[in-house]
């Protein structure tokens, strides 16, 4: 059994009293790229924010939710129960860091790039300016930027692609072991996307990192992910290796997602999108949240919500497969 780095168990999150995450459970193994995939509003970013404990004030995490993190020396701590000061000092950016979705807006417009590095170091007790400058310089070179010029310029003077690279360098600054990538390439052109992706994979090898990729871009998942979890309406509906998901998808929503992505050369077949509209958390349908848009919806789907069950090297939440598992 490969050693686990992060284990999330029964994670529930409420905005005011609306449930946006329901019993989300998964494990991320050391050294892999674990992808959380789903359309906008399915709760994937909320899951990432819950791990790094930067949910907005109006958010509340369920009592029995657990997020275990395995430190280098082997012992495991529940991140949700750690006191804020200790969590900020030991976990944030030293163990877990994050590349934000709006990378364009993640740098303080009134501070130079180098100040971002100094203040992050200072807040973790590293005061030695030369050491910090050298480390920052090294990282910016690693992300193929003109370190000298970039360190002394303001965020507004950098292009979108350059800001993205600065954010990545900043994320690796305190040698974290687990990096969450929240939609790292959405706002970028396809050529720049390509460069950022290959850069991220190089850095993963160089610094022995584990990635959690949050994205709605199916093709990007196929490109770099090892294991994939599909999320819909705040729940994981299917999780397995990237080969299983792409070559043998089981859950109707996964199948629909894969079909809606254009492939080079298929001129005739027009992709059938999903009927109906995205789920509204305020009045989710009873039973399986996907049943209004599902071709195979059965009577039971409208009444009982399927739980996430093991099925071979795959986990799935769908009544179509419930009998199969019980027969085995």
């Amino acid at each position, binding site marked *: 059994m490969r050693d686990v780095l992060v284990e999330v168990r029964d994670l529930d999150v409420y905005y005011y009293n609306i449930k946006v995450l329901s019993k989300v459970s998964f494990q991320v193994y050391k050294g892999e790229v674990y992808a959380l995939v789903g359309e906008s509003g399915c709760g994937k970013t909320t899951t990432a924010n819950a791990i790094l404990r930067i949910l907005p004030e109006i958010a509340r995490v369920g009592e029995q939710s657990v997020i275990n993190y395995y430190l280098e020396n082997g012992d495991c701590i529940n991140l949700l129960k750690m006191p804020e000061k200790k969590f*900020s000092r030991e976990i944030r950016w030293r163990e877990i860091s994050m590349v934000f979705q709006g990378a364009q807006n993640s740098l303080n417009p009134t501070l130079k790039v180098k100040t971002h590095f100094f203040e992050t170091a200072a807040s973790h007790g590293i005061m030695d300016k030369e050491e910090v400058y050298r480390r920052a310089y090294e990282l910016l070179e690693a992300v193929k930027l003109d370190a000298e010029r970039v360190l002394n310029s303001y965020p507004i003077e950098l292009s979108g692609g350059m800001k993205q690279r600065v954010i990545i360098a900043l994320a690796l600054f305190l040698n974290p072991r687990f990096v969450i990538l929240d939609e790292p390439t959405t706002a970028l052109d396809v050529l720049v996307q390509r460069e950022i992706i290959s850069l991220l994979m190089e850095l993963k090898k160089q610094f022995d990192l584990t990635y959690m990729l949050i994205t709605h871009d199916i093709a990007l998942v196929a490109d770099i992910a090892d294991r994939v979890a599909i999320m819909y309406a705040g729940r994981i509906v299917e999780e397995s290796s990237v080969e299983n998901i792409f070559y043998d998808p089981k859950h109707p929503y996964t199948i629909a997602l894969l079909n809606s992505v254009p492939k080079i050369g298929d001129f005739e077949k027009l992709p059938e999108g999903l009927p109906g509209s995205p789920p509204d958390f305020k009045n989710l349908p009873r039973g399986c949240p996907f049943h209004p848009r599902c071709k195979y919806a059965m009577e039971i789907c409208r009444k009982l919500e399927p739980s996430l069950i093991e099925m071979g090297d795959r986990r799935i939440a769908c009544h179509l497969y419930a009998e199969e598992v019980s027969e085995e």
Partner: protein
Amino acid sequence: MRVWTWMIKKITLTVVLWFLTVSITILIILATPGNPALMLLTGFLQQGIPYNQAVEMVRAYIGFSPNEPIWVSWLRYVRGVLTGNLGLSITYRIPVSQLIAGALPWSIFFTTYSLSLTVALGVIIGLAMAYYREKALIIRAAMGLLTIFNSIPNWILAAILFVYVGARWKLLPYTGAFDPGMSPEANPLGFIFSVLHHYTLPVITMVITSLPSWAFSMSAMAASVLKEDYVTAAKARGLPSRRIILSYVAKNSILPIYTQIAISFAWLLVGTVWIESQFLLPGLGSLLSVTTGSRDYPVIIGVYVIFITAMILGNLLTDLTYGLIDPRARVEEE
């Protein structure tokens, strides 16, 4: 090199603006029915002074004469302003420029003293209101109190404080700028202390009535900055909340409302007309309110021009310092 050209552009624009503003105001004054020169002339004629001598006197006092076309008087007056000759005061019979020279320093001291207090308190209160928002009950109470302060005109507050805190309970000095016995040469430290003591009540009046607008716009600005991605990113990087409040929330909130300093400066400067006259403080404000009673037009218009000049300089200063603080301003303008 870029910053320098940006500065020159700002300064030249300001000079043009100054010239336009002075000219337009003079034209408005000349154009209103009941032109001051005519008023003066009728005054002199009533005293039996022959016509052409009276016209001469009017020109000596006010700088423009009743029967010439508006633009001639305008030209003459503007030339006078440029050469520092703002005409003679009717009531005191000494050049207006001397009167103003005596009063100006006091008003500048009073306005900048109140402005700095207002901005400092406004920013702090605004930040606190945004950061704690609806949670703390005291914040809601502060909101209510600030709204009440916002609805009291400063001249009413001046009257109340003057009558009660000053005259009735004698807690704080309420007339004059310093103790008559004190003089700057004899005892400079004592003099300064006495001035500050005398100015406590007037400054309180100014600060209380102009603080709310600062607190409200600051808290609105800070609330929107708190939602920005870079604040969440800073929290994620484990930055202490003290650091986030100061160099993230405060710094990014102050900049957009920084230009409000110039407007507050103008508002305070105008407020001196009521506050200085109420507390009998020397300054342009009281000079203006005294001379309005006796219709001393040369002084009134002279003080007015100085006020506008002070305000335009205030604007220029805020623009220049704004450019230095916020890199975006310089870069954006290119």
